[in-house]
C-alpha cells in the first residue's frame, strides 16, 4: 500500500518525527498550551477512574471483548451487515480510502445536495473525505467545536479528542473573527476570548447549517453485531443535530469498531467517557438502528472501512492496536506527546497509539520514525482502558523498521556494521578484553570531564542527542585479574 492511498494516515511531505519534534519543541506557546491542557485532563481522568474500585476488571473485560471480536471479525461484520440491513439501513464495504470516498461522494450526489454537516470522526479524517468531497463540488462543514477551529484555521488536528488542543483561547478568538464570515455567519461583534463566548459564537455560526442540512456524515464509536445498533458518543450536541435533523445519514466506520453484543456496551460506556474526557458520563450518547419512521433520517448508510486495518490484523503482535476506542488517554499521559504535540507525528493518529497504528496502517517503511517516537516508559499501557500493550508493539515495530532497512540496503549501514562488530567482540573474551582496553584509551582521548559529547563522522547520529560517560580506565575483568591473581577466572 502506498501512503497516498491512505490519504491522511500520513500527511504527505511531513518531515520525520525527530525533525518535526525539534520544530515543535522550539515553540514556547505550543508547549505552554499543551502542558496546561494535558495536566488538566490527566487529573480529571485519575479522579473519575479512581472512583471505580473495579476499574481493572472493567479494563480486562474491555480488552477481552476486543480481543475476541478481532479473532472472529468476519463473522461479526456479516452479522452486523445483516442486522443493519433488516432495520432498513444500507451497508457498503470499502477496501481503502479511495473506495470509501467514492461511496460517500456518490451517495451525497444522489441526494442532489451540495453540502453536508459532519460529526467529528477519525475515520473520515483518516480517508481525507472533506478534500474528496470538495473535489466533487460538495462542501463539508465540521460541527464539533475543535474541528471547526481546525477547519476555519486551515490547520491540522493535533489530538484525537481535542483536535485544537494546540490553540489557546486568544488564538481561537482570532481565527473566529478572521474566518467565520467566509464560511457563513460571521463572529459576533466584540467577541471576547472567554470560552463561554467562543462556544456561543460557534453555536450561532452553526445553527442555520444544522437547520438547513439534508445530509450528514458521521463516524461511529461502536456498532452492535447482534442488534444492528450504531452509536456516537459526544459532548456538544452537534452530533445529535447531525444524527437527528437531516434526511440522509452516512456513517463511516472502521471495521474494528464492531462489538458482538448489546451487553458489551455496559463495559464500554463506563470505560470510554472516564478515560477520554474524564467524566462519569459524556453529555450525550446517541444510538440508533437503521431508520425509525417519523424520527430522524429516513435513509441510513453504513460504510465499513478497511484501509490498512486488515494488514494490521495480520500481525499477531500488532493487531492489538485495533482494540483502540480512540479515548486519547495515552496521548495525555505521554511525556513525549506533552512536549512535541500532535503535529510532529505527521498523522491524524498522533501520540502513543498513533506511533503503533499509523506505521501498521500504511506500512512501516512509510512511517519509519514513529515507532521510535517514545521513551518506552509504559505510561500509555497503564492508562489504556482496553490494555493495549503499546510498548510491546513499539519494540516489535522497531525491529520491523530495522529489518525493512536492511532488506533495502545492499551495503550495511553504520549501525548494522557496529552491531556486527559488537557481535564478534562479545562472542570472545579475548577480543572483549582487547576492545575494553582500546575503549578506555579512546574514551579518554575524546571525552571531556569524563563525558563523551558529539563525535564526528558516522558516530554523530548517536552522540548528537546523547552524552555518553567515558569508559573507566580499567574494566571489571581487568581489575579482577589484577587483584585476584590466583582466582578462578578462566
Amino acid at each position: 500500500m502506498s501512503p497516498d492511498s491512505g490519504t491522511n494516515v500520513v500527511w504527505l511531505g511531513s518531515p520525520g518525527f525527530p525533525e518535526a519534534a525539534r520544530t515543535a519543541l522550539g515553540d514556547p506557546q505550543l508547549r505552554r498550551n499543551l502542558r496546561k491542557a494535558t495536566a488538566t485532563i490527566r487529573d480529571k481522568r485519575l479522579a473519575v477512574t479512581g472512583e471505580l474500585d473495579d476499574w481493572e476488571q472493567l479494563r480486562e473485560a474491555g480488552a477481552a471483548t476486543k480481543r475476541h471480536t478481532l479473532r472472529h471479525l468476519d463473522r461479526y461484520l456479516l452479522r452486523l451487515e445483516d442486522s443493519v440491513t433488516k432495520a432498513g439501513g444500507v451497508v457498503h464495504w470499502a477496501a481503502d480510502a479511495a473506495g470509501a470516498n467514492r461511496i460517500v461522494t456518490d451517495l451525497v450526489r444522489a441526494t442532489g445536495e451540495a453540502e453536508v454537516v459532519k460529526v467529528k470522526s477519525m475515520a473520515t479524517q483518516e480517508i481525507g473525505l472533506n478534500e474528496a468531497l470538495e473535489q466533487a463540488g460538495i462542501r463539508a462543514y465540521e460541527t464539533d467545536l475543535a474541528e471547526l477551529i481546525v477547519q476555519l484555521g486551515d490547520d491540522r488536528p493535533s489530538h484525537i479528542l481535542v483536535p485544537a488542543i494546540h490553540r489557546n483561547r486568544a488564538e481561537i478568538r482570532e481565527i473566529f473573527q478572521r474566518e467565520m464570515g467566509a464560511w457563513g455567519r460571521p463572529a459576533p461583534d466584540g467577541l471576547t476570548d472567554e470560552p463561554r463566548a467562543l462556544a456561543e459564537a460557534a453555536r450561532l455560526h452553526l445553527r442555520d447549517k444544522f437547520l438547513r442540512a439534508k445530509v450528514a456524515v458521521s463516524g461511529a464509536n461502536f456498532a452492535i453485531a447482534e442488534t444492528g445498533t450504531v452509536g456516537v458518543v459526544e459532548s456538544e450536541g452537534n452530533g445529535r443535530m447531525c444524527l437527528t435533523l437531516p434526511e440522509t445519514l452516512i456513517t463511516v466506520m472502521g471495521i474494528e469498531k464492531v462489538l458482538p453484543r448489546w451487553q458489551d456496551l455496559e463495559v464500554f460506556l463506563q470505560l470510554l467517557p472516564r478515560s477520554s474526557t474524564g467524566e462519569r458520563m459524556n453529555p450525550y450518547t446517541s444510538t440508533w438502528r437503521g431508520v425509525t419512521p417519523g424520527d430522524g433520517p429516513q435513509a441510513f448508510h453504513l460504510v465499513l472501512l478497511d484501509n490498512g486495518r486488515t494488514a494490521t490484523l495480520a500481525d499477531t503482535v500488532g493487531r492489538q492496536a485495533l482494540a483502540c476506542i480512540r479515548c486519547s488517554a495515552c496521548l495525555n499521559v505521554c511525556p513525549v506527546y506533552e512536549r512535541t504535540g500532535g503535529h510532529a507525528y505527521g498523522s491524524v493518529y498522533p501520540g502513543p497509539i498513533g506511533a503503533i497504528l499509523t506505521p501498521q496502517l500504511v506500512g512501516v517503511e512509510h512511517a519509519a520514525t514513529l515507532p521510535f517516537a517514545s521513551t518506552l516508559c509504559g505510561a500509555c499501557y497503564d492508562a489504556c482502558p482496553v490494555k493495549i500493550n503499546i510498548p510491546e508493539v513499539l519494540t516489535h515495530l522497531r525491529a520491523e523498521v530495522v529489518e525493512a532497512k536492511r532488506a533495502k540496503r545492499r551495503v550495511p549501514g553504520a549501525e548494522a556494521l557496529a552491531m556486527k562488530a559488537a557481535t564478534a567482540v562479545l562472542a570472545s573474551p579475548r577480543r572483549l578484553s582487547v576492545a575494553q582496553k582500546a575503549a578506555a584509551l579512546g574514551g579518554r582521548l575524546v571525552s571531556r570531564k569524563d563525558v563523551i559529547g558529539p563525535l564526528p563522522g558516522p558516530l554523530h547520529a548517536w552522540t548528537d542527542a546523547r552524552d555518553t560517560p567515558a569508559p573507566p580506565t580499567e574494566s571489571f575483568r581487568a581489575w579482577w585479574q589484577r587483584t585476584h591473581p590466583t582466582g578462578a577466572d578462566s
Partner: protein
Amino acid sequence: MTARDTVLGRIRAALADVPADEAVGDAPVPRDYRRSHAEADEVGLFAERVADYRARVVQATPERARATIAGLLAGSDVRTLVVPPGFPPELVPEGPWRRLEEPLEPGDLEAADTVLTTCRAGIAVTGTIVLDAGPGQGRRALTLLPDHHLCVVRAEQIVADVPDAVALLDPGRPLTFVSGPSATSDIELDRVEGVHGPRSLDVVIVREEPHV
C-alpha cells in the same frame, strides 16, 4: 470481485493463526466487574450526580409535581412550551406560556423556549437520563432544539448503574443518553456548559417521600 469480498478475504487471510474450529464461546469475557457502584440511596445519588453537571435538580411528591414544574417554568421566563404526545396531562401546569404540540417544524422547535418530557430511565452513578422516544418524550428533535429541557423522572425509573440501564433499554429504539446540559471542553480543556444542545437542563424527580 466486490470490495466486500476483498475485505472479507483479507480478514480471513489475516486470521490464519486462529484455529478454524475456535468457537465464539471458547474464550468467555471475564465479567467480574461490579453490576453497580451505587450506595443504598440511589435516588439521592442520582440527584447529586445530575447536579454535578450543573443541571438544576428538584424533588417533589406526586401531589406537588405539577406545582414544582410550574415554579421552574415561571422562574425560567418561559413563553413557548413544547409538550410531546403522551406526556401525562395532569403534570402540565397552566401558565402564561403558549403550548406547542406536534406536528412541529424544525423552525417551530428552534423558536420554542422549553420542552417538557418524561424519560425511559435514570442512571444513578453517572447522573444520566435516558430518552427512548417513547410516550411523553417525543421524537429526538423535540429534546434537542429548544434551549431549555425540563425532564420528569419518576423515582422508580432510576436504576443503580450503567449495566442495569443497558439491560433495560431496547436497542431497536433511538436512544439518547443525556448527562447534564450540552458542554464542550475543546477550549483549553475548560468545561463550558451550553453549546448546541439545550443549554439548561432541569430535572424533577417525582418521589413519594422526598428527602429534601
